[in-house]
């Protein structure tokens, strides 16, 4: 939105103005703001903050705040990306199972990396990444596509038009590919954590079926370059 910087608060107020049809609604009053759970952001002294942050701080001091959801906590172990991935893996509301699978996956990654670490010669030991969270984030980042395809119907025919993707869409696609890949293309007897850890490690090294899928998508977008002008937004 091309609004001047002084209109930071006005922009936020404007964001609440009623739209034409209210389909999604929440039990909270629209004036409630999202909670900020990160401990570090409260430790910074007031002088360090920039103009916008000072404004935000003042706004938060006057407005009511929503309650923190039960999947979020201020501990180092709660990660928003991991929570999102766990929710996507969940089936039928079985959060217990999804969380245990996630924990087992991270444990499996750690085990495999430690095995590699102990077997490797001295000079290579530093290059091996053992932190499962770092591997998870890097693997997701490597799998994110840059352009996506969208079906646009023009003159009776449907064309696959290359379009730029939002950040959230990229993250969602990467996570979705992981989950579908691990659910379908595995042997009947392999467990999900094992297969997932395998895929994540492969994606971390820029190899494996999910990276291939991303490259295929990019190639399709490149092939359909001619239709790019069909996009009107």
């Amino acid at each position, binding site marked *: 939105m091309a609004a*001047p910087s*002084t*209109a930071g*608060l*006005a922009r936020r*107020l*404007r964001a609440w*103005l*009623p*739209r*034409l049809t209210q389909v999604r609604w*929440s*039990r*909270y009053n629209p*004036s409630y703001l999202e*909670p*900020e*759970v990160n*401990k570090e952001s*409260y430790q910074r002294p007031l002088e360090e903050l920039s103009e916008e942050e000072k*404004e935000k701080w*003042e*706004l*938060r*001091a*006057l*407005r*009511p*705040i*929503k*309650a*923190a959801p*039960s*999947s979020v*906590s*201020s*501990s180092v*172990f*709660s990660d928003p990306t991991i929570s999102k991935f766990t929710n996507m893996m969940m089936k039928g509301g079985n*959060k*217990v199972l999804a*969380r245990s699978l996630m*924990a087992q996956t991270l444990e499996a990654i750690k085990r495999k990396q430690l095995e590699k670490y102990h077997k490797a010669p001295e000079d290579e030991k530093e290059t091996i990444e053992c932190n499962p969270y770092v591997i998870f984030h890097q693997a997701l980042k490597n799998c994110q596509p840059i352009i996506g395809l969208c079906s646009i119907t023009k003159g009776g025919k449907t064309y696959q038009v290359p379009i730029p993707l939002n950040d959230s869409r990229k993250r969602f696609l990467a996570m979705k590919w992981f989950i579908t890949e691990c659910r379908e293309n595995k042997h009947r007897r392999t467990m999900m954590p094992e297969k997932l850890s395998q895929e994540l490690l492969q994606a971390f090294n820029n190899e494996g079926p999910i990276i291939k899928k991303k490259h295929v998508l990019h190639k399709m977008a490149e092939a359909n370059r001619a239709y790019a002008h069909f996009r009107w937004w």
Partner: protein
Amino acid sequence: TLRLIYTTTAVQRRNAGASGPEKYTEAFIKKQIEEFNLGKRHLANMMGEDPETFTQEDIDKAIAYLFPSGLFDKQARPMMKHPTEIFPEQRKIQWGEDGRPLHFLFYTGKQSYYSLMHETYGKLLKVQKYQDQLTAQDLLPQKQKRNLAGSRWLTKIELEEMLLEKLSDNDYVRFIQLLEKLMMMPCGDIEEKYIQKFSKEVPVQLQKVVVEPLKYDERGVAFSTGEGTRKTAKAIAVVYDNGTGKMTVNGIDILHYFTVLQDREQLLFPFQFLGRIGKHDTVCTVSGGGRSAQAGAIRLAIAKALRSFVAEKEVEFMRQAGLLTVDPRVKERKKPGQEGARRKFTWKKR
């Protein structure tokens, strides 16, 4: 003859003034006001009070005493209010005796809305002209940061009540955009009074909750109690000082009561946030709800109890982290004609 229509303000809010030509004349309203005042004096005499100093509250109490009603809906019980509260304001006839409209924007259909927009835009132009004059003389004042967080614009319903006309969402949005533009300009302070007509003070949401002081039990250990609710679960937590971090729920240790890691994480959240993990002992009682609801209720109870142990600044930090708000989300009701709250029945073509 006119048909008397008694409606309450709550129902009338939707049709404020826009329900066509007026249904009751001014003379009628005047008569109603006279009758009301007379009735008020009679009521005061009946109750043995002084008719001069008989307030609306006294009227309500008297009516509730004289006409007791067991009806649940407050609006359905007998009431005696000033006619202006019962008969909502309505637009007067907008054309003269010769049939010609009185307002120049009558034929737009939404005369008050368009006249308001016209006026606001006129103010905007005036402010711009003034600004240009000042820039020519290089006397442009710096924009003073206004405290936007303490006030809000009128809602669409309030604006409708003010204008006595129905507005569409688009109209309302356009009007608010114009007002914001006016406010954002450096010399917008000239039109302060005009803008204040359309803004309302938001009462400071903090509500200054009184933090209870610490209590001391027989052993001399400081403790404090907190209550929490979440969905249908109710919890009471007693947090003791000088502890080792042990937590008991309904007499059972949390490791055995809450088998799932997520619930235990939620219980430890307030301690972890304040950095006091091994320092407090907790004894909680909880009932109702499910696994996650009980955990959320205990979390709220613990956060409320910890307020007494901690400085004011940290209480504010806890509030901004969302630890001290009651979660209002409850199970949505199932609607008729649908399978669940949102899920519809399977659509069959025939």
